[in-house]
């Protein structure tokens, strides 16, 4: 630590970046970056994540604004789907000769 060292500046907020790689596909999370505001985040995202035509559309979202499920509760949180095999088409036994099912 040098005496000349200044107190740490407030750093730019973190944005998560989502890119649609081509029409017809969903936006997919590709990473994150820091920017002073959303518009700068978009420009930076273009330069960092789409230098080779990887995208036709970009979303940036303040990381603080994302609510995520907790990994610690992984099993109980997703349990409701666990015992409902009747939600899958393979649950139903249909005679093989019946067409188009």
């Amino acid at each position: 630590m040098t005496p000349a060292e200044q107190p740490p500046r407030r750093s730019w907020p973190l944005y998560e970046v989502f890119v649609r790689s081509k029409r017809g596909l969903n936006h997919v999370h590709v990473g994150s970056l820091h920017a002073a505001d959303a518009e700068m985040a978009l420009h930076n995202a273009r330069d960092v994540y789409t230098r080779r035509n990887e995208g036709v559309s970009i979303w940036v979202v303040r990381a603080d604004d994302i609510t995520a499920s907790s990994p610690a509760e992984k099993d109980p949180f997703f349990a409701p789907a666990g015992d409902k095999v009747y939600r899958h088409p393979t649950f139903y036994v249909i005679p093989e000769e019946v067409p188009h099912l």
Partner: protein
Amino acid sequence: MASANLQGTADAKGTADLAGTADLEQGFDATIAGGQRIEPRDWMPDAYRRTLIRQIAQHAHSEIIGMQPEGNWILRAPSLRRKAILLAKVQDEAGHGLYLYAAAETLGVDRAELTQMLIESRQKYSSIFNYPTLSYADVGVIGWLVDGAAICNQVPLCRCSYGPYARAMVRICKEESFHQRQGFELLLAMVHGTDGQRQMVQESVGRWWWPSLMMFGPPDDDSPNSAQSMAWGIKRHSNDELRQRFVDMTVPQAAALGITLPDPALAWNPQRQAHDYGEPDWAEFKAVVGGAGPANAQRLAHRRRAHEAGAWVREAAQAYADKQAGAAA
């Protein structure tokens, strides 16, 4: 601190009691053993987190510092074509640094902290960037040998057990391929040029060959952290395995260029089905890692200067954002 909901935090583990920790550790080990990825908010051992932060930060710093040796030649590139390529390549290195800082931040550190650690010399970067670029041929040789060695190191990292690091490496490896090919093509043009140009290439290879071999790190019997990193699935191959792979890949490429690699011990060994090669000067390696390389001080001083000279831009952008937010409210 990165406060995002998606990020891991170093203190999340503080809530678990001892019995809980054993369960968590079992879950972590099972995930790794099953070949699955660890994700940012998963529980992980402190040492795993610390190792990753150190390795990813060091990797990110290497990309950022790595812009300097080649950036040295942007204004002197011999044609607009070569200048555009070199600019794109150096811009990619900045991008790679940013992917990696973003991956490191998912472990609960802040990029600004890491930058501070770099410019205060409290974290390292790859020793290769402490060698100067003395001729334009160095641009080609860095692409061919240095990026070639980096690719050998980085391809296995695409399967690293830590998800964000592995994903960053997938992006990086795709782009590195351009880096290596542009370097080789540049050298091919030079070796088909004048005698003077061929000599420039040979002289440059003579300087970069051994430092490139050192990029794989110390020999296996002198690499204390390797075993743990391999058990954790961070590292997939030993330093010497990767070094051997690089030598075997590079020898025929050197032949295609008509260039001699500066190692009298280099020879094909039919028993091993691999090349024998000489021992790099590990004393030199240790000295350069320790700060005594030809350009260590210059690289860090430049990085510090750039960071400090950019402070007003960061502050102005923040002030503008604050003002806009105030006007909107």
